[in-house]
């Protein structure tokens, strides 16, 4: 259970959320929506303990993140960053195996079990044939799938995913969402930053709307994903279309 208590987060002098209280429970899937620059990534980094909060605290099962060793935390909490900011020279399989790093028992290399878990994650992300390719020869979407496979291989209870669907084509978006749905059925908790309201409607049961002025609103997905809320959130007129008994929103321009 990942909990934010009176969390205030700021970056470069801009407050991205004020006294936020939220609890991410096992089996829940949270969607975070907001404009560009609203601070979604910063909030996610704060929830992962990668960005120090200005006030308040984030805790994992009742323990403040700062008091937990990174290695122990990495066994429970997985993060998919938007930009890795690094360069990996090895193969796709070696890259996905890094997800096993917090769990590995030996100083040298990874066990057969680790290899098996990494292979499964590759299959889940439709990458089995690319396993031996150097990671830096992959396309943007393939790389994103490799990054997702790495988080899957980490086998954690709580997943913080920053734009997990970026660069993915429709089939692979669905595949990734299926994989996340499976994690949720197995009792995992998820929080994902999304730009696609449709996916938030279909896959998330809780939604957090992050406004540009630092306000945040969260609640059940059905209550949050209304035209009024979304027009205020994106500061843009929306049109509501009915489709297969549901609603979907498109920009009204």
């Amino acid at each position, binding site marked *: 259970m990942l909990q934010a208590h009176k969390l205030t987060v700021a970056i470069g002098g801009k407050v991205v959320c004020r006294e936020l209280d939220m609890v991410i429970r096992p089996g829940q899937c949270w969607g975070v929506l907001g404009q560009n620059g609203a601070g979604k990534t910063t909030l996610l980094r704060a929830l992962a303990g990668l960005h120090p909060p200005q006030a308040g605290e984030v805790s994992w099962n009742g323990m403040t993140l700062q008091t937990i060793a*990174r*290695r122990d935390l990495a066994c429970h909490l997985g993060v998919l960053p938007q930009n*890795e900011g690094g*360069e990996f020279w090895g193969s796709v399989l*070696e890259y996905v195996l*890094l997800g096993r790093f917090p769990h590995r028992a030996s100083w*040298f290399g990874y066990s057969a079990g680790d290899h098996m878990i990494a292979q499964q994650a590759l299959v889940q992300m439709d990458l089995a044939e690319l396993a031996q390719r150097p990671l830096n020869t992959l396309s943007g979407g393939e790389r994103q799938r490799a990054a997702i496979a790495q988080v899957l291989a980490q086998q954690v209870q709580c997943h913080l995913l920053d734009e997990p669907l970026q660069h993915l084509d429709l089939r692979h978006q669905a595949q990734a969402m299926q994989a996340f749905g499976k994690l949720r059925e197995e009792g995992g908790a998820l929080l994902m930053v999304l730009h696609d309201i449709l996916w938030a409607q279909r896959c998330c049961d809780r939604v957090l709307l992050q406004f540009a002025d630092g306000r945040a609103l969260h609640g059940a997905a059905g209550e949050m994903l209304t035209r009024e809320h979304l027009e205020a959130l994106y500061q843009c007129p929306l049109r509501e279309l009915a489709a297969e008994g549901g609603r979907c929103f498109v920009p009204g321009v």
Partner: protein
Amino acid sequence: MPPRILFLLLLCAAALGLGFGLMSGSLPLAPAEVWRALMGNGGDTATEVLWQLRLPRVLAAFCCGGLLALSGVLLQALLRNPLADPYILGISGGAAVGALAAMLLGASLAAMQLASFAGALLAIVAVFGLGFLHGERNIYRLLLTGVVLSAGCGAAVSLLLTLAQGEQVKGMLFWLMGDLSHPEGLLFAWVVLLVLGLCATVFSGGLDVLVGGPDKAAALGIAVGRWQMALYFAAAALTVAALQLGGAIGFVGLMMPHAIRLLGISAHRWLIPLSVLLGGSFLVLADTLARTLWSPLQLPVGVFTALLGVPFLLWLLAAGRR
């Protein structure tokens, strides 16, 4: 190429390189003579030459090459920059200013070594203080601080060179290009290489994670700040040990890790031992050629590392594209 086979090949190359280095010189020795002299029951001159001159020299060359290659691997991981080499953070600049200033004042060899050591230490502390401790840990600030300090030291070195006279200039140029003819502190350098090489291999899994970027590394369980600090000081110690042994020998630290990577091996668990072996063998070969090709004239080894290494790497780069 499978890393295990490459490891065995490089072990053979290291043995061959060391053997070649022991045989060559103004008194050429046959393999059998080298063996007898090593066992201590050969002719007097051969034994003398081997134990007093050649063995320390080839061991120094091997160790120096290994130190530089390892330092290069660690700095490329720390700075997440493939262009990082042992000299990028200004450590060699500080050492050069110290060494050259001592030479200009006509100091003894020991005093010169001490001055270069002091210069390197000053540079390490300055870069660490300015680049690391200030506010948040930003690796680009560290890199920039080092590059700026290097530029300053480069200017000071040019000034010292213009102030120097005749013979002094030659000694200075030899130091700047790298020269293994005074292998002092050999035992210390080997201890540094073996201890840090072993530590780096043990922690190699974390290095693989660390090159993925700070957020990713932290999310996978690395205490990034502590790792960066440890890497910085380990690389600094390796560089200082190499500078003390052979001056500022270029090319080895930058290119040996890339040579191994071009062969398709990038996991640090293999990259570290393979780079050390390749760097050591390579420097033994370069140094042997530097002291024998135009003997009795001895050329600075730094010239040969580039002369030999550039075609080799250009070939690897071209072959890698196929």
